[in-house]
């Protein structure tokens, strides 16, 4: 009986670890929310998501503009 319980506990631990690792990876890969939207002269649009370096370039400056401009 003890052996079975130990195996169930070990299995639970393995499943828990796998779920935690997957959740972490999904979170780190998510692009984040849309932070910048650009509309080009031909009418097409391009979105930059908050986790991208490009978006952060925009938001870092924009944050300061809002801070000092309002």
């Amino acid at each position, binding site marked *: 009986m003890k052996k079975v319980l130990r195996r169930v506990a070990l299995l639970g631990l393995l499943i828990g670890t796998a779920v935690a690792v997957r959740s972490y990876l999904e979170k780190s890969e998510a692009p984040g929310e849309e932070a*910048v939207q650009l509309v080009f002269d031909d009418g097409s649009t391009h979105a930059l998501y908050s986790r991208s370096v490009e978006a952060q370039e925009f938001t870092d400056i924009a944050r*300061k503009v809002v801070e000092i*401009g309002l």
Partner: protein
Amino acid sequence: MIGYNARLKRDLNSGMGACMSEQGDTTGGLEGKLEDLKALSGDIRSCAVLSGDGELKGTRLGDGVERERATAMLAALAKLSERVARENGKEHTSQTRIKTDDGHVLLVRLEDGGTLAAMTNPDARVGLVLYDMRNARDEVQKSLQGEG
């Protein structure tokens, strides 16, 4: 702030462009046009016009705002937008919307390469503000040409 119904009624009666020029005539010049834009779009907290080379042509920034710093940063945002356009194989960006925790920065490109910029609260109706900015663009452009 102008309510939706009053705004709709006024726009239907006179047309947005007519409304801008009518108000512009009373105040005159670029500063007047920016004041009109701010009055028309209650969500705009401050706005400015930059020339293509990043020079501040007119502004309705709040009192005590460091204008030179704000101008340099708006010019940097306009340049970044143009860079992204080039990277995506486009000629120009016609408008840019940047969302931050404390509000939005909105940029609309003028014909001569200048920029009409506006700052809003975080809960602003950004689409409506951009619509007003696009409508104000021609009037702003005319004022700039008049000044030049």
